[in-house]
C-alpha cells in the first residue's frame, strides 16, 4: 500500500474503528476527484469519518446540515451591499471549503439539492453572473438516511450519477463497539488527531492517480461491465458513460492506493458495486421479485470475461 495513503488511513482508524473499507473507499473517491454518497442510519460515524479525513489531510472542513427550508444561497453564499464601498460584496457560503459534509441531503428541496450538485460537477460556484472557483481539492461527502421517507425529497437517480460512489457504513461488530466505548470513555479522540499529509501532497497524489496506466484490455473490461448493466434483463436504466469513466478513475485511485502504477481487473471488480450501484435502476418486476442491484452486479461480474491475454485491437 502507498506509504502516504497508508498513513492517512491509519490516522483515520485512530478515530473510526472497524471501518477501514469505508475509509479506503472515501479516500479512493477523494483521490479520484469524485464525491461520495454515504447512505446509512444516523450515529454510525459518518460525520466522524469525514472530519477525521479532513483533519488527516489538513483540509478545511465544512458541514452543511440540510433542512427543508435551506435555500441555495445558504449553501453557495450571497452578495451583500456594502454601504461603505457602495458595492455588492460576495459572502461565500459553507460550500467554499475542501471537504464538505452535506448531511441528510435528501431533507432539503430539489432547488437546493441541484445547487449543491452543480457545484460538485463544476467545482465552482456561479452567482450573480460571477464564477467563483472552489478551492482544490474539493470533496463532498453527502449522507442520506435510507429509512426515513416522510418529509424528504429523494434524490432523482439521474442526480445520483454525480456521485462517484455510494457507500454504506453499517454497524460495528460487538468487539469494535466495545473498543469505541473504551476510546470515548475519557476524551473525544478526534480532538487529538494530527494532520499526516499536507494539502499539496494530497494534490500531488491526485495528479499521480491520473497517471496510473489503464491498459486497453482493462478499459475493455470496464466497458464490458457497463454494457452488461445496460443489457441485463432486470435493469431499467443501466450505467451511463459517465459511470464508466467514474469506474476507471476510481480504479486508478485504488491501484495507486495499492502502490501499483497500473489497473488490474481485480480493482475494477472490487469497485464496480460501489461505483455502479447507485447508477442502476431496476425494473419494477425485478424489484418485486426481490432482486437487488447488488445481486445484478454480482451476477454480471461473475459472468464477465476477464481479459487474460495482451490486448489486441480487433
Amino acid at each position, binding site marked *: 500500500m502507498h506509504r502516504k495513503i497508508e498513513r492517512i488511513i491509519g490516522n483515520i482508524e485512530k478515530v473510526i474503528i472497524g471501518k477501514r473499507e469505508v475509509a479506503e473507499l472515501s479516500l479512493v473517491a477523494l483521490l479520484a476527484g469524485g464525491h461520495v454518497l454515504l447512505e446509512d442510519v444516523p450515529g454510525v460515524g459518518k460525520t466522524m469519518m469525514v472530519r477525521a479525513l479532513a483533519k488527516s489531510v489538513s483540509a478545511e472542513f465544512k458541514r452543511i446540515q440540510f433542512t427543508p427550508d435551506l435555500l441555495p444561497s445558504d449553501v453557495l453564499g450571497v452578495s451583500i451591499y456594502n454601504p461603505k464601498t457602495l458595492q455588492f460584496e460576495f459572502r461565500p457560503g459553507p460550500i467554499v471549503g475542501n471537504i464538505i459534509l452535506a448531511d441528510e441531503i435528501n431533507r432539503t428541496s430539489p432547488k437546493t439539492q441541484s445547487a449543491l450538485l452543480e457545484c460538485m460537477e463544476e467545482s465552482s460556484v456561479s452567482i450573480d453572473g460571477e464564477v467563483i472557483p472552489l478551492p482544490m481539492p474539493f470533496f463532498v461527502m453527502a449522507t442520506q438516511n435510507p429509512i426515513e421517507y416522510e418529509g424528504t425529497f429523494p434524490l432523482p437517480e439521474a442526480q445520483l450519477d454525480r456521485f462517484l460512489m455510494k457507500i454504506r457504513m453499517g454497524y460495528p461488530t460487538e468487539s469494535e463497539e466495545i473498543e469505541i466505548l473504551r476510546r470515548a470513555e475519557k476524551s473525544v479522540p478526534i480532538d487529538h488527531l494530527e494532520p499526516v499529509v499536507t494539502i499539496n501532497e494530497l494534490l500531488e497524489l491526485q495528479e499521480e492517480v491520473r497517471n496510473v*496506466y489503464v*491498459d486497453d*484490455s*482493462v478499459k475493455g473490461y470496464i466497458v464490458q461491465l457497463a454494457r452488461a448493466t445496460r443489457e441485463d434483463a432486470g435493469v431499467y436504466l443501466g450505467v451511463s458513460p459517465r459511470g464508466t469513466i467514474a469506474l476507471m478513475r476510481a480504479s486508478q485511485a485504488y491501484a495507486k492506493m495499492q502502490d*501499483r*502504477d*497500473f*489497473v*488490474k*481487473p*481485480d480493482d475494477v*471488480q472490487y469497485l464496480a458495486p460501489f461505483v455502479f450501484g447507485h447508477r442502476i435502476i431496476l425494473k419494477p418486476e425485478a424489484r418485486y421479485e426481490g432482486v437487488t442491484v447488488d445481486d445484478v452486479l454480482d451476477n454480471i*461480474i*461473475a*459472468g*464477465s*470475461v*476477464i*481479459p*487474460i*491475454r*495482451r*490486448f489486441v485491437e480487433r
Partner: protein
Amino acid sequence: MKYETFNKIELALYYIVIFFILREWLLPVMMLTGVGYVNLFLFFIVICLFISLFRIPFYLSWLVKILYISWFTIHVYSDAPFISPEGIGFLWRELLSNFALIAHGEFFYTTNPFQTMLFFLLMWMLVYIVHYWLTIRMNIFYFLVLTVIFIGVLDTFTEYDGTVAIVEVVLLGLAMLVFLYIKKLIVQYGASFRWQHYLKIALPAILLIGMAGLMAIFLPKADPQWPDPVPYIKSAAGQGSLFWEKVNKVGYDEDDSVLGGSFVGDDTTVFIAQTTKKQYWRVETKDIYTSKGWVSSDANVTAEIAPGQTVYHSLPVGPDEQKEFAHIELRYPYDFIIQPYGLMAIHLSEGMENKINLTMNVETEKISANYTGNYMYHIEYSTPEYLYSDLMSTMEQPLDAGLRRKYLQLPESLPRRVIDLAEEIVKGKESDYEKARAIESYFGKNGFRYETKGVPVPEENQDYVDQFLFETKFGYCDNFSTAMVVMLRAVGIPARWVKGFAGGDLIDREGELDTYKITNNHAHSWVEAYIPEAGWVPFEPTIGFSANRSIQFDIETDESQEDMLIADENTEPENKKNGTKEETARENNEKLASFQNLFKYLRYVLYLLFSGIAVAGILLVVFRKRWMLKWYSRWLKNQNINETTFEAVYMRLLKMLELKGFKRKKGQTLGAFAKEVDEIFHFPYMSQITEAYENYIYGNKTGIDYEKLKECWENLINRTSS
C-alpha cells in the same frame, strides 16, 4: 511394529498376490499353446518379483535373469550341460541364426528356443511394469482390468475355464486396491501410521469386498446369452449360413433321422486322449436308412460290461502282443465311451469302478455310462491288421440271412439311378473289397467338394443320397458316408453307418504317448463294410479324411496292382501311409499339428491385441486428463519464460491446472485464482508468477526480471504436476 517393517511386509504380501495374478496370465497361455515346464516359468516370475522387492542393483538382477534364461534354454532345448562349450555354442548359434531371420523379416521361422527367450523377456517386462504400478503409481487398477479382460477373452473364446481365476483375481485385486489406496493416502498427506486408523479404513473395505464376493456366489446366475460367441459373431458377420437354412451345431448328435443343413463349428473340448497314434474313435453304428437320414432298429438289447473284462463286439481285434492302452479323459457331459478299433477291455480309474455302470447296446455297439461327470478311463486295445489276402477274397457273404437283410436294407423310394451309379462304379471289380474301394474313392475323382455351408435338407419327396450324388455334389462327412453305405448296399455289400470322432488335434507329446484334444468339431461319420474273411472294415469316403485301417500285404501282388493301391490311397489329402512310411507321415502330421497350434496361438494373440487396443483406446479417452497433464507439465517444465513466450506459457499453465482440477471460474481474476491455487498447495509460487504476468499484460511492463522467475516457475511446475 515400526512402519518401515510393516511397509516391507506389506509390499511382500502385494508381491505374493501379484505372483498369483501373473500365474493366471501364464497358465492359460501355457495350456493353450501346450508348452511344458510351467513351474520353471513360474520360478522365473518368482525371481523377477524377488529382485524387484529387494531392489537388487540392476546389474545383478540383469545377470541373474539372463543366466536363468540361458540356463532354461540350454537345459530344455539341448542335451549339453549348461556350462559347457556345447551349451554356450548352442545358445550362440540360436541367437545368431534367429537374429538373422528377424533381420530378414522371416518371423515365422524363428526357432522355439528363441521364441522361448523372447517369452521370458516379455515376462520380465510384465513384472517390471507391475512393479512400477505397485511401488511408484501405487495403483494396479489397469493391470487388474487387463487381467480380467484377458481371462474373460480366453474363457469366452477358448476351452480355457476361467471361472475360478476371474473370481480369484477380482477379489485379490480389489483388496489390494484398497490397501494401496490407503498407502497412497498416507504417503500423500505425510500422515503418521497408526494401526487403529489403518484398520478403520481397511476393515470396512475388506468386509465389503468379502460380502460382495459372497453375494456374487449365492446370487442366481443367468445362463450365457450366447452359447459360444465365436460362431455367433461369425454368422452375424455373414460368414455363416442364411437364417432360413437349417443350421446344425457340429457335435455329437443322437438324432440323425434328418440329415443335411449347414453347421457351425464348436470348439468345445470333448475328450483328451493319450494314445500312441492318431486314430478314429467309434461311438455307435446305425443301420436303417430312411432316405432322409439314419435310425437304428429299435432293439434295446443291452449287455453289461465289466471293467477290465473282455468286451465282445462285431469288429476284429489285433493280436494280443500288440496290445496298447489309450487314456481318455472326458471333458464334456456325454454319456458314452469312445472306442478305438480293436477294443479289448475298458478300465476305469480307481474308485470309479463302483460308481459307473457300463452297458453296451448290442445293436448299435454304443457303450453307455450312467455317469456324466468328468472322469478318466483307460482302453485296452489292439488295432486290427487286415490281411490283404482276406480282403481280396471273393467268397460268398458268410453273414446269416437276418443280418444280411439288416445291413442291405434300402428304402423303397431309393431312386433307380443311385443303384445304377453304384453298379457302374463297381463294374469290373471282383472282390467286395475292391468294389468298396472303388466306391470309397469315387467322390475324390468326380468333382465332389467338402463343404459345411449351404448344404440343403432334402425336400419331402427327395432322397438325401440322391440329392447329394446327382444334384449338389458337395457336403460333409454325413453326405459322403451315407452315400457310400447306400451304394455298397445297392451292390450287395453289407454296410453300416458309423458315428464317432476323428483323431483330434495333437497338443502334447510325452515319450511314447501323444495327447490329442478332441473337440465337437471332430465329430465325424464314416462307413463299415462287411468283407468276407476279414469282417467289418472301416472305409472313409469323405474328402479330406484318411482311411483308418492298416493292411498287411501278405500275398504277392504284381507291382502295378500295388502301385494302383498306393496311388489310390494318395488321392486322399491327409494320407496315412503303410509300413515304414508311416513314420514320416506321422511326423508330417505333427508338424501340421504344431503349425495349427501356432496359428491358434496367433489367433489368441490377435484377440489379445485387439482387446488390448480397444482397452488402450478407452483408457486413453477416459484418462485423457492424466496423460494430457503429463504432456503439459513436461512441456511446461522445459519452457524458458521470456518476453515472447510468457503469454503462451502462462496459458498452458492455466490449462494444466485446469486438467489438474483447478479451473478458473468465469469472472474470476487471475490474482484471485492464483491465491486460491496457492492456498491449496501451500506455496506462494502461483501468485508470484501471476503477479509478474499481470505486470506483463495489464501493466504493459517490459523490464520484468524473468531470470528471477525461473526458480519460482520450476517449483511451481514440480509441485503442481506431481
